C-alpha cells in the first residue's frame, strides 16, 4: 500500500541522502621543497669563474649568503635561492677540508636579473676569515642574444696589472655532426708567481699553446699555437675517451687541475705530481674523460691553484701555475644511440678485417695491430672477421648498447682456426666499492686519472694464464678471476678491471688450484714504462721519463709458444690502450 506516509518517508530518506553534503577533503601534502618562487630561467650569458670569487651581488642585491669562510672541521654555509647548494658563488681557497675541490663556478645568469636596459651590474667578493672583504670586483655586462661567456681568471691580474678580471668569449652552441664533439683551446695563460728558489723554479708555461692528444700528437691545425688571450676555432672530433694535453711552444706539458689532493700537489720544477718535498713523480696530471657525442667543450689554460711540499714533513704551500681546465659549453648530452668498437688482430699468421653489420671497422690489419675506433648506432650487431681474401673466418652476434665500448679480437684456437672474441671495455674509471648491501647509490668511486688494466689470454698454447705484479707479487685476492687462470678466448665477466700501478707485469702458467704457477720465462715481462706511447714527448724537452703513463689498458697474451714458432709469432703480452 503506497500510502501517503510511506511516500513521505521515502522523501525524507531521499532528501537526507541528497542533502547530506559531500565533505570537502584536501590531501595533506607536505611542502618540503625549497621555495622555487624565483625564476631561474637562464640567459645565454655565463660567468665562468676560474679565480674563485666566493660571493656575488647583482644590481646591488646579494645573491649569496655572504658568510665568511670558516676554518675548522665543519664547513657549513646556508643555501640561498640562487645558489641552493651552499649559498656561495665560487670558492677561492684550497685546504684539506675543501674536499670537493671546488674552485670557481660556472654560472648561467638568470634572465630575470638583467635590468630593463638589458645590462646587469655584478659585484664579486672574496671574504676573509673574519668576514672583511679581501677582494672585490665590479663588472657591468650586457645581455646577449648569442651565447657568451665571461671568464674570470687571474689572467689580467698577473699579466696586465689587474684592471679587469673578465675576458669576454663568445661560444658556440650549434651541434657538431653526428658522433662528434666540438672542442677548442682558450689561452689565458699568464706569468705566475715564483716560489723561493730553494723549492725549485716554477716551469714557465706561458705563451702560445697547442692542443694535443695524450701522446702529444696534435689534434688539428686550428688548435695549434693559439696565442695568449685568444680562443681557437672549434674543431670536430669523433666522440670518445680522451686525455687532452696542452703543450707550450717549448713542448712542455701544461698540467691539469683537480680537487684530488694528490693530483693538485705538484713539484714546482717539473709540474708533475709530487711524491714528497724532494721526489717528483714525473707523471703530469691531466684528466681522462669521455667527450660525449654532441658535446661542445672549451679547454682553457689559465693560472690555477696548486700546492707544493714546503718541507719533509709534508707541510704544503699554495702556488699558482698555468693549468688546463675542461669547460662544457653546453650541457653534456647523454649518449643514447652510439657505441664504439675497434678490432685487434691476435691471429699470428693472418691479416684480418673487422666488420660490424657489414660495415668496415678500420682497414685490413696484420698480427699485433689494432684498428682505430669506429662508432655505430647501437642495435643487434653481427661482428665478422674476414681474411684478406674476404672470406668470413668467424662471426658473432651481440646486442650493442649505447655508450658501450668494445674490442673485437681475432685469435687462433688450439686447432689453428681463427676465432672472433669480444671484450666490453670500461673507460669510465668508475670502480665499485665492496660491501654494499641494499643501496648501491654511492657504492663506487670515480677517478679522472686512472690506470686501469684488464687481462686476457688469446694464446691457445697457454691453457691457464696468471698475471703477477712486481717480482711475482700477487694481484688482488685469491681466486680473483681478473688475473688468475685466464683461459684462451674466454673473457672474465666479473670485476675484470685491476686499478694499480706496477713496475712490471709477469705471465705465469698456472692451473686450477695451482696459482700463480710457474713463471713463463719465454714470455717477456712488461715494464711500467712500456705503457708510455711516445717517450719523445718527455725526452725532447729533457725531462725524466715517468714510470708509467695513465690510461685504460687491456694486456693480452697473444702469439704461440713452442720450439717451431717463428720469432714474429712468439707469445708476448701486448698493451692495448683504449683512451687517446
Amino acid at each position, binding site marked *: *500500500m503506497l500510502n501517503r*506516509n510511506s511516500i*513521505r*518517508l521515502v522523501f*525524507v*530518506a531521499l532528501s*537526507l*541522502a541528497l542533502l547530506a*553534503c*559531500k*565533505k*570537502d*577533503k*584536501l*590531501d*595533506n601534502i*607536505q611542502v*618540503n621543497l625549497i*621555495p622555487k618562487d624565483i625564476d631561474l630561467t637562464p640567459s645565454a650569458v655565463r660567468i665562468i669563474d676560474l679565480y674563485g670569487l666566493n660571493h656575488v651581488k647583482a644590481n646591488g642585491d646579494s645573491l649569496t649568503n655572504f658568510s665568511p669562510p670558516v676554518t675548522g672541521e665543519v664547513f*657549513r654555509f*646556508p*643555501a640561498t635561492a640562487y645558489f641552493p*647548494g651552499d649559498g656561495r658563488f665560487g670558492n677561492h681557497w684550497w685546504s684539506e677540508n675543501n*674536499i*670537493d*675541490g671546488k674552485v670557481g663556478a660556472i654560472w648561467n645568469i638568470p634572465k630575470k636579473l638583467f635590468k630593463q636596459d638589458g645590462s646587469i651590474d655584478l659585484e664579486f667578493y672574496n671574504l676573509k676569515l673574519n668576514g672583511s672583504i679581501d677582494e672585490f670586483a665590479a663588472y657591468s655586462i650586457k645581455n646577449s642574444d648569442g651565447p657568451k661567456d665571461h671568464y674570470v681568471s687571474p689572467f689580467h691580474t698577473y699579466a696586465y696589472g689587474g684592471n679587469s678580471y673578465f675576458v669576454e668569449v663568445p661560444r658556440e652552441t650549434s651541434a657538431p655532426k653526428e658522433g662528434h664533439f666540438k672542442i677548442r683551446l682558450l689561452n689565458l695563460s699568464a706569468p705566475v708567481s715564483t716560489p723561493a728558489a730553494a723549492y725549485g723554479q716554477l716551469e714557465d708555461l706561458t705563451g702560445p699553446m697547442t692542443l694535443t692528444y695524450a701522446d702529444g700528437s696534435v689534434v688539428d691545425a686550428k688548435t695549434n699555437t693559439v696565442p695568449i688571450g685568444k680562443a681557437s676555432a672549434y674543431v670536430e672530433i669523433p666522440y670518445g*675517451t680522451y686525455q687532452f694535453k696542452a703543450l707550450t711552444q717549448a713542448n712542455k706539458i701544461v698540467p691539469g687541475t*683537480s680537487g*684530488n689532493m694528490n693530483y693538485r700537489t705538484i713539484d714546482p720544477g717539473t709540474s708533475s705530481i709530487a711524491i714528497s718535498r724532494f721526489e717528483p713523480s714525473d707523471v703530469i696530471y691531466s684528466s681522462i674523460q*669521455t667527450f660525449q657525442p654532441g658535446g661542445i667543450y672549451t679547454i682553457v689554460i689559465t693560472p690555477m691553484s696548486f700546492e707544493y711540499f714546503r718541507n719533509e714533513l709534508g707541510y704544503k704551500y699554495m702556488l699558482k701555475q698555468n693549468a688546463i681546465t675542461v669547460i662544457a659549453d653546453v650541457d*653534456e648530452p*647523454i649518449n643514447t644511440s652510439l657505441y664504439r668498437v675497434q678490432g685487434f688482430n691476435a691471429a699470428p699468421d693472418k691479416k684480418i678485417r673487422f666488420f660490424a653489420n657489414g660495415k668496415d671497422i678500420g682497414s685490413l690489419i696484420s698480427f699485433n695491430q689494432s684498428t682505430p675506433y669506429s662508432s655505430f648506432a647501437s642495435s643487434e650487431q653481427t661482428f665478422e672477421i674476414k681474411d684478406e681474401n674476404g672470406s668470413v673466418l668467424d662471426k658473432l652476434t651481440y646486442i650493442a648498447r649505447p*655508450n*658501450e665500448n668494445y674490442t673485437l679480437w681475432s685469435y687462433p684456437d688450439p686447432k689453428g682456426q681463427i676465432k672472433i672474441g669480444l671484450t*666490453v671495455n*670500461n*673507460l*669510465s*674509471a*668508475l670502480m*665499485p*666499492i665492496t*660491501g*654494499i*648491501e*641494499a*643501496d*648501491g*647509490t*654511492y657504492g*663506487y*668511486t*670515480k677517478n*679522472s*686519472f686512472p690506470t686501469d688494466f684488464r687481462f686476457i689470454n688469446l694464446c691457445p698454447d697457454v691453457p691457464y694464464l696468471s698475471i703477477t705484479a712486481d717480482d711475482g707479487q700477487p694481484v688482488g685476492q685469491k681466486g680473483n678471476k681478473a688475473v688468475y687462470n685466464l683461459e684462451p678466448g674466454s*673473457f*672474465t*665477466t*666479473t*670485476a675484470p678491471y685491476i686499478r694499480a700501478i706496477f713496475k712490471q707485469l709477469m705471465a705465469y702458467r698456472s692451473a686450477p688450484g695451482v696459482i700463480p704457477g710457474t713463471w713463463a720465462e719465454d714470455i717477456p715481462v712488461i715494464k711500467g714504462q712500456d705503457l708510455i706511447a711516445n717517450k719523445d714527448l718527455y725526452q725532447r724537452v729533457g725531462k725524466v721519463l715517468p714510470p708509467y703513463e695513465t690510461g685504460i689498458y687491456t694486456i693480452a697474451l697473444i702469439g704461440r709458444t713452442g720450439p717451431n714458432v717463428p720469432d714474429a709469432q712468439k707469445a708476448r703480452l701486448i698493451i692495448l690502450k683504449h683512451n687517446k
Partner: protein
Amino acid sequence: MQKGSKTNPLKRKIYIYRKQLFFWMKFSLVVLYLKVFLISVLYAENSKGQSLDMKLNIELSNSSIKESLNMLSKKTDVSISYRDDVIGGYTKKVSLSIQNKTARQVLNQILDRTDLVYHETGTYVFVTKKNQQNTLSGVVYDANDRSTLPGVSIRLKGYNTSVISDRDGRFQIQIPQGGGTLTFQYLGYLKQEVKFDRSNTAIQIFLKKTSTELSEVIVNTRKRVATEAALLEERRLSSTVQDGISAELIERTASITTTQALQRVTGVTVTDDKYVAVRGLGERSVIGQLNGVRLASSNPDRSAIPLDLVPASLLDNITVYKTATPDKPADAASAIIELKTKSIPDTITLEFIAQTGFNSNIGFGGKYNSFKNNDMGIGGQRINKKNLQDDFLALSQQYPNGLGSIQKLITDRNYSPEAWQEVERINGIMQRFDPIMTTQYDNARPNQIYSLTFGNNYKGFGNGKIGVILGGNYYKRYTDIREGALTQYSVYQGVVTGNPDVYSHRNIPNFITPNRLYMGRYQNYLENTGTETVNYGVLAGVAYRFNPRHELAFQYMGSWGGENKAVNMNGGYEYTGLPGTVNSYIYSLQQAYRTLDIFNFQGEHKFGAGEFAPRLSYNGATSTSGQNEPDYRFAGLAVYTPDAGGYYKRPYFYDGTTVMADTYSEHLYALTSGYVNGYGTYGIIQAEPNGRRWRDLKEKNYNYKADLSFPFQLFDGKQEFKTGVNYLFRDRTFNENHMFIPGSNFVGNKSIPLYDVQGDLDRLVGPEIIGIKPRTVQGEGAMPIGGFLYNSQKSPNNYKGYYETNAFYGMLDLHPSDKWRITGGVRFEMTNIGSRVDTANVFLDPGLTATSQDGKKIPMLLIEPNSLYRTGYKPFYSVNLTYHPKEKMNVRLAYNSTLARPELREITNVFEFDAFQMGLVIGNPDLKNQYTQNLDFRWEWFPNTGEVLAVSAFGKQIESQLIRVFNLKTDGLAATYPEFPTIQYQNDQNMGYVWGMEFELVKRLETWWPMLSGFSLGSNLMVAQSNIRKSDERYLANKSLDRHTPKNSPLFEQAPYSANVWFNYVNKKWGTDLTTTFNIVGERLVQINLTGEPDLYSRPVPMLDFVFTQKLYRRINLKGFVKNILDPAIKTVYANPGTGGLWYGNSYINRSYRRGMEVVFGLTYNLF
C-alpha cells in the same frame, strides 16, 4: 634561507573557511536528524487527528447514535461524516456524562458494541460499518500449556497465501468469500487443518506436540529460533545461563556483522568492531562456534574469532552461553558464542535485500582517505595481486648471500649479455612494486548491502524430507575519520628519531615533579583514517531426514572479504628544545584479504522408539581460514625545519674517493626507527616500523565430536546421562616478508635518499631511488649504478604450529521433581601446543651478522626456535541447578571451572614489530593455561511470550590470568634512539577477581498501558567490579611518577558497566517498525604503561541508533537505519580508574575521534 614565511595567509583563510563549512554541514545534518525524527513522530501522530484528542465535557441521555455523533461534532471542530442508511439501522441508545475526556474516548463509547468503526483523515472522521468479510484473525496456542505459539506457519490451502503468527501467536489472513481450509504447521507440533466459512471472523487453534522427544532430536539448523520470542523460550527451557539475539533483533538493529549484533547482548562488549569480551573477559576467554563447531582464527597476532566475517543476515540467532556444561568446551572461561545459521523454513522463502547509504563523515559521494592503486576488485580478490611474486621470492635462493651479490652483479652487468639480461630482470622486479607510500583522498561510492536468502523443503525418498537453505550476502562500506586527535603524553620531552640529525636529548622538564603531577605533550597528531570494506559470504545447507529418528545435515559456509585501510597522521613533537619545528608525518597503507571456508557435517540418530531410546549426535567439521596482508606499507617521517636551515652528511665524489660532507638543507629528515632493549642474542633488537610487509596466515582446523545420551527413568521422571568426546586440531602456517625502504636508519645510506627526494615518500619508493639509477652523464662503458634493492629474504618471524585439544566428558541431567533440575558432570581436557620458527634463509641485518671468508653470512641463532606446551587430561567440573518456583520463572545457580589456553602465536618465539601498536610483539614459550572458577546466580521470569525480567549475579576467580603486558627497558634520559616497548602475554602471578550483576528487562508496554499498543522496551545492564593487585614492576613504574598510585587495578579490558536499551514500535496496519537502540560501555583499561605515565583507559561512548522498516507494497519493504546518531567522540585517556577519565584533575586525551553517523536505506523484496 631568508625566504619564505611559515604560515600562508591564504591557506589560513581556506582553513577557517573549511572549518566554518564543516560546522554548517554538521549543523545541516543535525537539522536533518531532527527532520527525520519529527516527521516520523508526525507520521505516527498525524492520523490520530489533533481534534479527536481534544478534551471535552459532554452529556448524552438516551440519544441515538446519530444524535450522539452530531453532538460530539458540535463540541469539537471535527467533522464527523456518516451515511444515514448505515447508522440508521442501529437501535443503540447512548447515555453518557463525561468530564474532561478526549473526543476519541467519547467516540469509542458511542460506537461501543456496534460493528461500526471510524476512520480519520485530517480533521474528518468517517463512521462506517466494519468490513471483515475478507479477513480472518486468530491466535495459535500450545494445546498442552495454552501458551501462545509464535512463528507458526499458516497457509491457505489451494492458494499461494501464507502468514506466520506473531510473537503473541496472533495472525491475520486474507480469505476468500466462500470459505476454505487453513493449514497450521509448526515444528515439533502436529500439522492441523481447519475449515472455515464466512461466518468465522476469529478463531483459536490449539496445536498438539508430536512427541516430547522430537524437539530435542532436531538438528540445530532446523530449529526455528529466529524470533526474540522463540529465543527467549529456548532460554527459559535451558539448563544454563544464556543470552542471545535473534535474527529478528539483528534485523531490527540493522546489524551487518555478527559483532554489531552481539553488542546488543547483555554483558557483551566489542572492541575495534572485531574483538569480543563477555562480562569483561577478553577474547581469549570467549570462543566462537558456528553450528556447534569451533571457528578458526584468522588474525596472526590476536586470538580473535573472525566474527566480522560472518554476515549477520545469514544467521538465525546468536546464543551466548555464560555458564558451562561438560558437553561444551571447557576453555570458554567467560562464554561460548554460538552462531546458528538460518534454519530451513517450513515454506518456500525467497528474500532479496538491497540497501545503500553513507557515513556522515564522508557524506553522499564524498571522499575517504585511501591511496593510489587501491582497487581491490568487487570481491577484494585483487588484493592478492599484490602478493610477492615467485620471481622475487626466488631471488633469495638464487643469491643466498643477500643483496650484496646482486649489487656486484649490477656493477658487472656490462661485461656479459647474460648478466645484462639478469640485471634487467631484477631491475624490473624491483621497480614493479607500487611506488606509493602516502595516502590520498578518493571518492567513496555509496555503501551497499545486498542479501539473498532462499529456503524450502522437499520430499525425499520414502518418508524422507530434504531441506535446503541458501544465502548470499554482500556488503561494501566506507568509513572515514577526519582530523581525529592523537596525543602522546609523556614525562619525557625531546626528539628521538634514531637519526642524529633530528635529535634533541631526552629530558624531564623541571616543572614535572612528584609534587606537581603533570605531563607534557610529547607528540601531537591529527589522524585521518579511511577504510573500505568488502565482505561477501554464502551459506548452503542441506538436511535430510530419513524419518523422525534419523537426520543428517551438511552445511557449507564461505566468507571472503577485503579491506583497505589508509592512515595519515600529521603532527609533530611539541617541546623539542630545538630552534625550529619538528613535524612528523605517518602513513600506513594496509590491505587485507580474508577467507573462511567451513564444511560441517552433522548427524542425529535415535536408536529405537520410545522415550528412553539412546541418542547419538555427531559433528565433523573442517575449516580453513586465511588472512593475507600483502604490501602493508608504513612510514613515519620526521621533518626538522631548523630556523636557519640545517646540515647533514652527504657523500661527495671527488677525484678518486668519496667523502661525507656537511650539506645544507632547509629541512632535515628521518624515518623514525629504534631498538627494543633486552631481547635477542645481543640484548637489543632492531625495531623498524618503516617498510613494506607481506604477511600471510593460513590455518586448517579439524573438529570432530560425538555426544551420546542415555535417558533413563528415575524419581518418576525422565533423567539423562550424556557422554561424549571432542577432538580439535589446528594447523597454522605464518609467512612474513619485511622489506626495508630507502631512508631507513638500518640501511647503509640511512637518511640520504630522503634528501634526494626532498622528503617525498612516494618518490622515495619510485624508480628514482629503487633499482638501477637512471644514467646521467658518465664515461664510456660505465657500469650501471645500483640504487636501492628490496630484500627478498623472509623475515625471521615465519613459523608453523599446531594446537591440539582432546576432551571427553560425562554428565547427568536430572529432574528430581517438577520444580528442580540439576545438570552437571566432569570434563577432561588436554592441551598440546607446539610451534617451530623457521630460521633457514631469513633476512638478518648485515650489521649484525658476521661474514665468513667465502662471503657467506653466519646467521644469528635464535635462542630457541621451538616451543612446546603440553598438559595431560585435567578435570573441569560444572554444576547447574535450576529451580522453577513458578511455571514461567527460573532460579539458577551454577558453578564451573574453566581454562584458557595461550594462543599459538603467544608461545611462539618470534619477535615481530607491530607498527600499529608501536611495539615488538614477542612470544613467551613459558606460558601456561589460565584457570578460572565461576559462580553464577540468576533469577528470571518470563511473564508473557517475548517478555523477560532477569537479575543475575556472577563472580569469577582467575588464577594465572593471561594478560597482555607492555614492557619497556629504557635508557631513560640517556636514550638517543626511540625505544619501543615489548608486548607479551604473561601469566599474572596474582589472583584476579571479577564480580558483578546483570539486569534484563524485555517488555511489551501495552501490558502496562493499552495506549502504548505496539511499543516494546528491552534493556539490559551489567555492572561489574574487578580487582587485581598490580605486579611489582607495574606498581613501581606507576609510582615513579605518582607516589600515590593505587596498588590494585581493574582487570584488563574489564568495563565496570555496560547498558543496552532498545525501544521498538510496530504498527501492523501501516506496516511500520521503528526501533531506537542505545548502548554504552563503561571505561576500560586498554593499555598498561610501564614507562611512568598512567595507564590508558577508553571512555564510555553512548551509541544511539535508529532503525526503521516501512511496508511499501505487499512484498516490498523500505528499510533503513541511522546509526551512531549522537556521533560522540571516542576517547582514550591517560587516567586513574574511576576518576571520570582524569589524572589529578587534568584531562590527558591520548586519542579522540568521531566515527560518523551511518545512514542506510533500501528495499527488501519477498517473493513468497
